């Protein structure tokens, strides 16, 4: 009862509440980011389950397909799959993190954020950065498995991949947030998986090389934004292993627009532009919800 708490409460201390400065924006971004991380770390089961999928792909599917594909050289198909599985981990974790907004809305917590005296964009940015961090951590865990599939732990490769994964994760989380802003039911999550996540995954070259594809499939894979992330991932890995030129050309064809072979820096620039566009769109979505 209320009466029992009486003697322990000190006198009323009014607090001062912050304004709208840059420091306040940063603080809002940080607190939303921090919440994502707390929720991630607390949910061990989620960490484990979301690692199960890439591990299954890498060791089961990768091993199973190996005899079919790499009869010629002493090349392990799992090595080919490795950068694709990194892409998969980033894709699924990012979208899943972003979709938690739908749960936040369902359970009301979104409202707590939406009525706070902070700029909407800080909430969106915090969410995107949080999702990106969580996805990057998951990606880093898979990256740690490199040695088990014949990929050496070169510091340059590790740093390159980490950087590329963070950027990709941010772009994908922003994409997910933009979609999450438009859906109001948890059930729609299935729709997002079927119509966005799986096509993006299959067309990206994560599990099969994009060389010598039928024309229609080649076009689709070039439309898939994730292709432009998987290609640099694969390039980073293949620069560390030594294979016959012909095999490299088949397994790591990169992406060409007509006759122009896209350089890695261009692909990364594309992801950056996409990231900015997505986060801008996500912010616009959320600012409209008034």
């Amino acid at each position: 009862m209320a009466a029992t708490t009486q003697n322990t409460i000190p006198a009323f201390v009014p607090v001062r509440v912050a304004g709208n400065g840059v420091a306040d924006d940063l603080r809002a971004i940080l607190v939303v980011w921090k919440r994502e991380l707390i929720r991630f770390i607390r949910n061990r089961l989620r960490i484990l389950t979301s690692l199960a999928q890439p591990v299954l792909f890498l060791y089961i599917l990768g091993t199973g397909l190996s005899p079919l594909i790499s009869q010629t050289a002493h090349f392990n198909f799992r090595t080919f799959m490795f950068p694709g599985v990194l892409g998969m981990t980033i894709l699924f974790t990012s979208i899943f993190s972003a979709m938690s907004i739908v749960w936040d809305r369902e359970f009301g917590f979104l409202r707590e954020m939406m009525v706070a005296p902070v700029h909407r964009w800080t909430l969106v940015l915090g969410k995107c950065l949080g999702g990106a961090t969580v996805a990057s951590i998951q990606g880093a865990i898979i990256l740690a498995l490199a040695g088990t599939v014949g990929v050496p732990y070169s510091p340059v490769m590790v740093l390159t991949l980490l950087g590329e994964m963070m950027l990709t994760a941010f772009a994908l989380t922003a994409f997910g947030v933009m979609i999450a802003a438009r859906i109001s039911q948890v059930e729609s999550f299935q729709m997002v998986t079927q119509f966005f996540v799986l096509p993006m995954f299959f067309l990206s070259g994560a599990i099969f090389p994009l060389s010598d594809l039928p024309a229609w499939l080649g076009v689709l894979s070039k439309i898939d934004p994730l292709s432009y992330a998987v290609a640099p991932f694969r390039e980073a890995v293949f620069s560390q292993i030594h294979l016959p030129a012909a095999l490299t050309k088949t397994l790591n064809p990169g992406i060409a627009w007509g006759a122009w072979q896209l350089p890695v820096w261009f692909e990364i620039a594309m992801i950056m532009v996409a990231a900015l566009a997505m986060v801008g769109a996500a912010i616009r979505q959320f600012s409209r919800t008034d």
Partner: protein
Amino acid sequence: MAVVDTEPTKLAVGSEIAVLADDLRKSYREVEAVKGVNFKVSAGETFGFLGPNGAGKSTTISMLCTIIHPTSGVARVAGFDVVRDQAQVRRHIGLVFQDTTLDDYLTASENLSFHAELYGVPKGQVRTRLQQVMEMVGLWDRRDSLVRTFSGGMKRRLEIARGLLHSPRVLFLDEPTVGLDPQTRSHIWGYITELKKRENVTIFLTTHYMDEAEYCDRIAIIDNGVIVASDTPEALKASVGQDRVELHTADDQATIANLSMKFGLEAKLSEGSVAFFVDQGEEFVPRLFSELGVKIQSVRVARPTLDDVFMNYTGRTIRDAEVTGSEKMRQNPFVRARGR
């Protein structure tokens, strides 16, 4: 850091208008949910919005909290315009919604810390303030428990604590006890009354429980988007006027006849007793005993309740109004806003 002083302690009851609505309206397409409401709430007051579901309570509170924009009219909260100074209004209000808005997967204190940082409570004060508000609602011992382990009543208490964390000038409680059992409801009210004493905060609440309206300094009865009456609960009840008297007698028919003959009162037999309305019921009882001429077994005199008040102003009971009201529309602006 840009810091705005909230100056919450300087306010005395009646000295300042904490909430003001002037011809506030809200329409959803062809439906006018709030049809021009006017009211003033003085600083330190507990003001209750009483009405059935669908009467426009939640829509009004959402406009005051800057969640939805009014179609027309003016509203000021803590001195700031709800449309032009949205951020200032938000900084100076605490909100407790009908449905919980807690993160189940965070602990109680993590939920509060999140709020403190979002509202910019200075780092040095967070810990003290957290303890203060959590002790106020009796949850300090449970600060490290995950919110998902909390009962409905505990969640509501935590939300009230959170609403106060940043020392708001006005605390909005939208149906603070809906869905809770009677015992928990009365506990929640214990906390609310207590915090009002401690925090010197203006409370604006909505309810459709008549008994809860009694806790308010002043209430406004809203029905179909219009305020039909607004005053203190006492004054409203007095405006209904007459007391209800119920009699058990040896001969009910004779009693009814005699009441009509000797006092000019129209009495009815209801639920086994003779009931009638009369001015100043308690003073009437001695006359009744001496002049009725029928043996009286028991007498009950009841002051008018808010139910009678509601009945008087709207022509129906709040429960009857609930049925038609909820059929008309589901009054949750958030559901509406997201349904794009």
